């Protein structure tokens, strides 16, 4: 297996270089790695686009692309692809999202645009894309350590993109109906939780608001979701490559599973994590709708 290049995007630079500390705290993945940092304005630690493009080869093992001031975010991904064309390493791209309201929807939209722009060259690039948030850094770091170039853990968003390409003309009318019912049940299941989380986010007394909702309600949602998947007549395993017994492992559910919010509410640091979780949930919910609609459009 060739050496891995780990490339991380940070849409929001407001944390400064905190990401580097996060990575070092959470994992030894960054040890002995050479860092190449991209920033729109350049500077002591950041290279500008022109500087990077002027490099003959990319010898770094860990690249960070950051900057939320781009008028056209697509430029990030365009640059990203050009960097990848200069390396023969297997790569992992960590796309940062969440915490600032930037959801998968926008990012995938950008990637789609970029894929169109780079369609003539993309077959030269081999690697994996893995979305993460600040609160996911630990699991993402672990993922980067263990993943092999061709062994990609299922991620529903990525799976759906793959599905979209492979099965766009392969679903009959009966499947359309089955999928429509499944989509409806999934979206309805989380409607009340979406309102609850918006309400908590707005509230001046988040703790009281949250306690009103009952933590077990969230856990019940997971149980209900599993039931919906299990009872669905739409062939999840066949069509979406989702194994019913592994539903708990899907990235979409991780956000819900990790909902020990009583502890998160303890102290300022906890409250920050709690707020990230709220953003994550709403982003997740909107992403879910986007992904399901994408399938619907292609059935």
């Amino acid at each position: 297996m060739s050496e891995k290049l780990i490339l991380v995007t940070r849409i929001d630079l407001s944390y400064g270089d905190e990401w580097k500390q996060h990575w070092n705290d959470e994992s030894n993945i960054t040890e002995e790695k050479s860092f190449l940092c991209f920033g729109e304005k350049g500077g002591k630690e950041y290279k500008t686009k022109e500087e990077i493009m002027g490099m003959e080869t990319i010898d770094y093992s860990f690249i960070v692309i950051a900057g939320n001031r781009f008028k056209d975010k697509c430029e990030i991904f365009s640059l990203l692809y050009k960097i990848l064309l200069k390396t023969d390493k297997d790569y992992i791209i960590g796309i940062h999202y969440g915490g600032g309201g930037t959801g998968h929807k926008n990012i995938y939209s950008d990637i789609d645009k970029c894929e169109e722009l780079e369609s003539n060259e993309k077959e030269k690039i081999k690697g994996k894309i893995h979305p993460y948030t600040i609160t996911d850094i630990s699991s993402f770091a672990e993922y980067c350590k263990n993943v092999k170039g061709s062994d990609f853990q299922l991620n529903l968003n990525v799976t759906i993109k793959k599905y979209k390409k492979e099965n766009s003309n392969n679903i009959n009318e009966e499947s359309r109906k089955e999928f429509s019912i499944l989509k409806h049940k999934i979206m309805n299941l989380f409607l009340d939780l979406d309102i609850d989380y918006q309400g908590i986010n707005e509230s001046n007394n988040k703790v009281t608001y949250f306690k009103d909702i009952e933590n077990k309600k969230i856990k019940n949602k997971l149980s209900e979701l599993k039931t919906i998947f299990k009872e669905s007549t739409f062939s999840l395993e066949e069509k979406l490559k989702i194994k019913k017994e592994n539903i708990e492992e899907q990235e979409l559910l991780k956000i819900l599973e990790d909902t020990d919010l009583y502890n998160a509410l303890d102290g300022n640091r906890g409250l920050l994590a709690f707020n990230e979780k709220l953003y994550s949930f709403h982003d997740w919910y909107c992403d879910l709708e986007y992904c399901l609609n994408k399938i619907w459009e292609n059935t």
Partner: protein
Amino acid sequence: MKKPTIFIVDDMAAYLDSLKRALSNEFEILTALSFEEAKQKISNNLDILLIDICLDETKPGIDKGGVEILKWIKQNYPDRPVVMMSAYSDFNITVECLNLGANKFLKKPINLIELRKTLNELIENI
């Protein structure tokens, strides 16, 4: 000063509870799970009605019980503003509701800020 009263009709009890909790600081919230319950509770004391199109979740995309309530309200309480909501993006139903006299159509998942803005705008015009 008395809070404006919003009457919400939706067959999902959990969703009604969540909306009630989120809006209760600014509005008096009354709820109903069905057309029958709604007919019993609707009165001239209500300021705005917020009605889901589908009132039978076992018939997604088929049941349009909310449209029937809208027709009934416009016959019996023609001046009450009505906001319709739905998880479906069905252009024909949207047009039908607006033609029947609905003031606004909101797509689920609903953004609370947008919902409050809609309700307050309608209250100002009452």
